[in-house]
């Protein structure tokens, strides 16, 4: 049984630093030229908004364990929205914090009964928000 008492539960939080090697790996593995994009500026990929999920203080497996949810049921990422208030830069230390916002029970013809878990993350640098991310995970019952 999904532990829905965890609404407003705050993640332990964590931090990450973007180095050139990992940024280049993202570029090369998604078909971008490493040296530049189509502009002359070196791009730190905005997808670090999602990579930050690594740094909430739990692994996904630990999060699902906390929720008392069996990952063998096949949790799926349903939606991800991010608001970028600033660009990412190399060699800065970004902090990540977040909390579980809600659970919603639904039924679909395709997967039957499921819950939607919504959680929010904030990525900050020196107390300034760089990105706000809203996740919705589909958790088949």
């Amino acid at each position, binding site marked *: 049984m999904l532990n829905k008492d965890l609404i407003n539960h705050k993640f332990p939080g964590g931090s990450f630093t973007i180095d050139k090697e990992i940024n280049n790996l993202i570029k090369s593995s*998604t078909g971008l030229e490493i040296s530049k994009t189509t502009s002359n500026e070196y791009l730190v990929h*905005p997808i670090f908004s999602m*990579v930050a999920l690594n740094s909430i203080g739990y692994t996904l497996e630990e999060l699902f364990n906390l929720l008392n949810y069996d990952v063998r049921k096949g949790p799926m990422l349903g*939606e991800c929205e991010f608001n970028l208030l600033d660009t990412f830069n190399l060699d800065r230390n970004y902090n990540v914090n977040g909390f579980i916002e809600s659970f919603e029970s639904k039924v679909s013809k395709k997967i039957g009964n499921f819950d939607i878990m919504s959680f929010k993350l904030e990525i900050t640098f020196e107390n300034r928000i760089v990105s706000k991310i809203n996740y919705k995970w589909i958790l088949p019952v």
Partner: protein
Amino acid sequence: MNLKIGHKINQWSHHVRQEDLNSWSKILNDPNPIHFDANAVKKIGQGDKCINQGPANIAYLINTIFYNFPKCKILNIKNRLNGNVFVDDIVTVSGEITNISNKNESKIISLLLNLSTQENNYLVVSEVELIQ
């Protein structure tokens, strides 16, 4: 580029290779075997090819934005994930301008993007707002 509502942006494509999935497992510190072991995918009844990581799919959409608007700043992206991308798929991102407004000397441009493969359409649908 012709900045008009309804204008279709240039498509962007990428061939998804197993080495890409291996890289993303490292980037995300993700031990899930569905990304590197086809047998793990078979066990969960999702086919017989390794499944691409969701953030990689979102990265393709972002690449498409910069391909079309190289000097833009992305403000917001809302992504709805409807299905999986598999290894060896050819991913294509297409889209169109849905709104344009002015802010000081800049333009705020809204886009609707669609990530498809040779097999499926609308695997990821994204609403984007950027400034340039």
